[in-house]
């Protein structure tokens, strides 16, 4: 089984979000970048497929050279090979088109993406990739088992979950549940040393245009101070009369 894990290079979850160039660009100054959390759950699930079912695991990112430390981290966790498509991502659709090309050339049985990236929250790349490659797709995937070319996936739905039977090739949009938080791996020294010599192939992008273009960013208006109250009577009165939510 050949697996491709799509890795988004995103600001650490605790980052302060600021913008530069007249609020048109994300300010990366002082920001620590990490593997997108939803992708990291998928990468860990892929490592289990590698260890228990002999799968090969490749990771891919669409981005500039600045994303390579994130790919090296994925290699240190245990992926066999990394691919970087040398392009600054503009929107989800353009990323999906580049990934579709990587998937077609690589002949992957399973492509694992994340439910969404925690920066732009588009949640569209895995679904678009599946449609572009004519592949089965399960979004918000919280469980996946594969036997031969048959797959059983569990999808989180609003208020519950759904079990689906499908077949490879398959694309999933994964999230926590594929593995647990405690299953995530911190690269050890041996992994980090090995990652230095593992292949990180740079591919030039295919010609494509984005369908959307973010023209400006804005931070939410600062919040007023909290109103501290001393009794539940006061709280209920405020929620009813002032906030009008009950």
């Amino acid at each position, binding site marked *: 089984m050949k697996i491709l894990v799509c890795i988004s290079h995103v600001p650490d979850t605790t980052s302060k979000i600021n913008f530069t160039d007249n609020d048109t660009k994300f300010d990366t100054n002082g920001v620590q970048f990490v593997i997108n959390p939803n992708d990291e759950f998928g990468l860990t699930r892929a490592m289990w497929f590698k260890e228990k079912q002999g799968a090969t695991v490749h990771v891919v990112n669409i981005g500039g050279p600045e994303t390579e430390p994130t790919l090296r981290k994925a290699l240190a966790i245990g992926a066999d090979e990394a691919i970087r498509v040398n392009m600054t991502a503009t929107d989800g659709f353009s990323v999906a088109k580049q990934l579709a090309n990587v998937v077609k050339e690589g002949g992957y049985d399973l492509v694992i993406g994340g439910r969404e990236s925690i920066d732009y929250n588009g949640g569209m790349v895995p679904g678009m990739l599946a449609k572009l490659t004519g592949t089965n797709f399960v979004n918000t995937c919280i469980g996946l088992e594969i036997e031969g070319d048959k797959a059983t996936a569990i999808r989180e739905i609003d208020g519950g979950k759904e*079990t689906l039977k499908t077949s490879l090739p398959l694309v999933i949009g994964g999230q926590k549940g594929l593995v647990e938080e405690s299953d995530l791996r911190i690269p050890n020294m041996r992994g980090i040393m090995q990652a230095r010599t593992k292949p990180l192939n740079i591919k030039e992008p295919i010609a494509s245009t984005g369908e959307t273009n973010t023209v400006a960013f804005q931070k939410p208006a600062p919040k007023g101070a*909290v109103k501290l109250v001393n009794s539940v009577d006061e709280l209920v009165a405020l929620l009813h009369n002032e906030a009008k939510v009950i």
Partner: protein
Amino acid sequence: MSVLVYTESEDGKIKKIALEAVSYAKGIADQMGTSVTAVAINSGDTSELGKYGASKILQVTDDKLNKFNAEGYADVIAQAAKNEDTKVVVVTSSANSKFLAPALAVNLEAGYVPNVVALPESTSPFKVKSNVFTNKAFATTEIKTDRKIIGLGKNSFGLKENQTTATSEAFSPNLDAHDFDMEIVSVDKATDKVTIADAEIVVSGGRGLKGPENWGMIEDLANVLGAATACSKPVSDMGWRPHSEHVGQTGKPVAANLYIAIGISGAIQHLAGINASKVKVVINNDPEAPFFKAADYGIVGDAFEIVPKLTEKLKEFKAQNA
């Protein structure tokens, strides 16, 4: 040329978020000088759609579509969009809409912006504002394609009545076998509980509750408010509550009218996930808890004393205001 809106239903009943989507579609239609067409799949009674501004309802009735399947549903909506020569399609932010929208975008070669929070700033060029960085910022995005797909963020537009005379017509899309490649084996869904996605009020508990045995008071409070229950990440990681209740950056997003956080300190990842909620109440015994900075109302004190009192007070209040 009409604005097309996919009106989701569940068990043959149109969902409230679908009515919000119709209200929003009507807003865009007014900006563009056109009307709203709704596409409803096995929806039963659709008479409510006219109340929020739909002029035409495409009724799709097909037993094969009784269970949601993203590929098939996206195919239906795409065919409806082409039939109506639609330039703008509106979907919601439900799990099902987010599942089908990317396939729909590829099918229609349409630019797609999810988590949209307001009517377009302009329709030519087409610019919309959406939530990004998990509620830490907004982006204004231009959609450059001829067809556009808008994923409306939950609870960001609200219901707006706009009584319109709606005509209904049957719509029979061509479904092919590929639309049903995936077999749904089972659906496991609590039918007696309010879901976080649909809830107007969410009551959420954190580590301050000390253990899963203390969740009774969270459930009591949620019951009196008709609210969904939720929890912080450490609580679900420790297995006190199921993952499906975890709200925050890597859990479920919450965009409720009222979010009540009990014994949750307010880590930045948690705040990001719930920040789209309109009114936030914090009950915590630590006055330094970061959540107080993000909240609208707060009580500093012992949750074990305050929560049962609050439940009692709300029962009285509900009885008086019933």
